[in-house]
């Protein structure tokens, strides 16, 4: 099947019958996913959005439960699980959902807030025919021309996209756009070949032995602890839970948190196991490249390049990978 470029609006409108359709757009220079509405300007040229799509599954602020205090105290869970279609997600970000699935849905407990949203989410990915200077997904095991975990894959062609259904979930969705798609396929544009390359071979295990390596003293020095990297990272999933209290009632929310903040691990009484930037920077990079792999069998960096692009002081995860590789080669 294929979709012509001029029919995209028609297709998105048809999809809104199924649920909230999130589409990439540009708002004042910030690429992000917004609910599709009349007149929204799609931005399908941008390789990946400035803000990652993780908000669809793991909102920046999620209401968890309502409570009342006092004599008639009660706690009532807030169920928020509408049908959502994520349109235009790129292969790197699709891999980030695979990693989030591992974190939230496996290893003993299932996170119900995430699970409910995940079940109702349909993903329509667009393969990349172009890349940013900071893209290095292929080095992290992601194919720019594929997104095996997506429900539907759109492969760019000169006229539009070839449409590949990849899951059971996609079938109902396809019925709603049946009259808009056309039969046959056009010849696909070649998949992007990112310019930035790193060699990840052996890095997770080499880095595991570098906890006390002197390189951390150097690496952490420029870091401001601003948290931009964790905010923009499609796989950063740390959160904190806090009440929003109004007299004798309120709502318990969970918010994105950042391991780059000193408060994050500071205990009551003042002891902090990660008291300086060195420990915090080390923990973040080791979590991305080693700890997550040890626990879940996959890396937590998908090579989207956002943290490299937006870090105000030029911290660069590919440099850590390179340094580790050199250490491993010695």
């Amino acid at each position, binding site marked *: 099947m294929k979709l012509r470029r001029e029919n995209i609006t028609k297709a998105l409108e048809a999809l809104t019958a199924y649920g909230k359709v999130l589409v990439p757009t540009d708002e004042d220079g910030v690429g992000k996913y917004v609910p599709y509405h009349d007149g929204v300007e799609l931005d399908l040229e941008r390789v990946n959005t400035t803000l990652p799509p993780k908000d669809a599954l793991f909102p920046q602020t999620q209401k968890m439960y309502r409570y009342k205090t006092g004599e008639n105290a009660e*706690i009532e869970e807030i169920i928020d699980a509408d049908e959502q279609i994520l349109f235009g997600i790129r292969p790197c970000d699709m891999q980030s959902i695979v990693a989030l699935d591992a974190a939230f849905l496996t290893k003993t407990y299932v*996170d119900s807030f995430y699970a409910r949203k995940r079940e109702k989410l349909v993903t329509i990915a667009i393969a990349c025919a172009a890349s940013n200077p900071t893209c290095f997904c292929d080095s992290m095991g992601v194919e720019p021309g594929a997104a095996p975990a997506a429900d539907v894959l759109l492969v760019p062609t000169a006229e539009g996209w070839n449409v590949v259904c990849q899951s059971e979930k996609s079938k109902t969705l396809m019925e709603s756009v049946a009259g808009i798609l056309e039969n046959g396929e056009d010849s696909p544009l070649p998949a992007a070949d990112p310019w930035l390359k790193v060699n990840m071979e052996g890095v997770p295990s080499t880095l595991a032995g570098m906890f006390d390596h002197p390189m951390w003293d150097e690496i952490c020095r420029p870091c401001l602890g601003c948290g931009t990297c964790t905010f923009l990272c499609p796989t950063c*999933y740390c959160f*904190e*839970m806090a009440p929003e209290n109004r007299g004798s009632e309120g709502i318990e929310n969970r918010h994105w948190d950042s391991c780059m903040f000193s408060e994050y691990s500071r205990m009551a009484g003042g002891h902090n196991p990660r008291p300086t930037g060195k420990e915090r920077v080390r*923990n973040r990079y080791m979590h991305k490249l080693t700890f997550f792999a040890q626990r879940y069998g996959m890396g937590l960096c998908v090579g989207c390049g956002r943290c490299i692009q937006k870090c105000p002081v030029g911290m660069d995860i590919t440099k850590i990978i390179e340094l580790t590789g050199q250490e491993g080669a010695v």
Partner: protein
Amino acid sequence: MTEKECNCNPLVPQVCRVIGITQETPDVKTFRVQTPDGQKPFSPMPGQLSMLSLLGVGEGMFSITAQEEDWIEFAIKKTGMLTDALHEMPEGETVGVRGPYGNHFPVDGAKGKNMLFIGGGIGLAPVRSFIRYAFEHRADYGKIDILYGSRSYGDLVFKADLFENWPKQPDTRLHITVDRGSPGWEGNVGVVPPYLEECAFSPENCMAVLCGPPIMINMCLKSLAKMGFSDEQIVTTLEMRMQCGIGKCGRCNIGSKYVCLDGPVFTRAELNELPEEH
């Protein structure tokens, strides 16, 4: 590992009531908690943790120091915003409780062994859950030694257990020390680690269970090694800042382990495998 079956959301607390508050020391209180219909919220294993919240104020992770048929109990030291508020609340107050979380003390692995329980300050709270379990299953364990120290006589927690209940138990000895003596105190004066060495407990067929402030734990680990305890014979608990309790929110990791899920109980042999970041 398989996904844990839970018919409730592990991140949403249940409403409970505080049915009893005891002032243990000037800055430690124990809070006895049960559900509004008089049940205990759950049946934890010794050493397990629970999130206790004062709705609208905040939530904190605490060890469950004791349980009976219809209640669980927390011993909490006043150290911050939440614990200050908990110390100010009256009996009958509503709290949120969720859990239990984490692994537990090796109550089965310790069967048939002599037990050496070591606590410092509020660190007796988690150890007490195992001590009570051992007394409830007295025939399963050999002789029991309990070494406990605090800053002063006034800072000793659970005085009824220390001076009345536990010394009456068969084949059980209490060794209590205070950092600073006071008029009327006839027991040992001095910090825990040297007293531990002075008591010269035999490592033979013995398991040591240790909990207290980090400096005490580190010194006791050295003392126990000197006394001939192997790394497998020493069990301790780690404390990190925790929030979700289910290994998701991220902050309590030490390397690839989460203290709320893979801990809080670790043998010294397991500690040796973790990065020094706790």
